[in-house]
């Protein structure tokens, strides 16, 4: 899955996902990617988030919505990302997933669980090209 956040110079925020889902899924199964608040969420007043991983689990916790709401309550992107992952891990300690979070100012972070490290790609003002950043899970 790809999950993406784009914020323009005026602070307009978009979020999106695209995926072919889980390999060997039961026909008809849909993961978190198209579910509002699960795969991604955006609110110009606050920020946005996009998640990736085990969609059967993630869609039960709406981690992207959760992260955006934490931003609304004053969390940093890093804290919001970690909180959203933490809510899942409480119940599913073998879960695999990750989330990227950006606030409306352009600050961003990520959190992950179940793999060693999670790569995410960033293109921001002042950069010549896309940079891959990592967060340790």
């Amino acid at each position, binding site marked *: *899955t*790809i*999950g*993406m*956040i*784009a*914020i*323009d110079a005026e*602070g*307009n*925020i*978009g*979020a*999106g*996902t*695209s*995926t*072919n*889902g*889980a*390999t*060997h899924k039961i*026909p*008809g199964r*849909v*993961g*978190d*990617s*198209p*579910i*509002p608040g699960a*795969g*991604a969420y*955006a*609110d*110009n007043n606050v920020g*946005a988030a996009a*998640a*990736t*991983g*085990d969609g*059967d689990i*993630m869609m039960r916790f709406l981690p992207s919505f959760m992260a955006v709401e934490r931003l609304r309550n004053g969390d940093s992107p890093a804290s919001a990302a970690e909180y959203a992952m933490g809510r899942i891990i409480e119940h599913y300690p073998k*879960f695999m*997933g990750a989330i990227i979070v*950006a606030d409306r*100012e*352009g600050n*961003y972070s990520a959190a992950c669980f*179940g*793999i060693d490290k*999670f*790569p*995410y*790609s960033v*293109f*921001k*003002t002042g950069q010549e*090209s896309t940079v*891959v950043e990592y967060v340790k899970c």
Partner: protein
Amino acid sequence: SSKLPVVINTWAFTNSTSAAWKVLTSNEGNYLDAIVEGCSVCEREQCDGTVGYGGSPDENGETTLDAFIMDGATMNIGAVAGLREIKDAISVAYHVLKYTRHTMLVGEHATEFALMMGFKRENLQTPKSLAIWRDWKDKNCQPNFWTNVLPNPEKSCGPYCPNTENTINEFWKVDDTKNNLFDEHNHD
């Protein structure tokens, strides 16, 4: 903010990030167009086999696509789920956002909507996805996502039926000591 604009996406799918940035900063479109172009690049490039056609075959060997786009200015959303035989999932989702008052369309009806919007019906199966599916069938359909069914899904392919004998010891339990079925190469 001096930190804007910015594009961020999951995984090291850098061509998608760059494509979205180009749209965002060159007056080729707005922030939603940037999302569509960025994700479309991944669909065309079949990023890691987890995006686009020819990846993640289901138990019947078919690839279906899910996509979502949200406008943070209006809270409008377009989404498709279980989209069949259309390659441009994120673009179809954007059409749901732009040209309907709905939020999500699914399955064959989402395909019909896409055809009406001018998209082309195409086979999403590729030789690679067919090989992945055949290999899985040859391994007695392992791993799979079934539980508490007969025959034992950890040993046999379907078709399955519910294990209704209601004897707890006879239920096939998911082995929690095994690794998750999801990893860097198999994810939503």
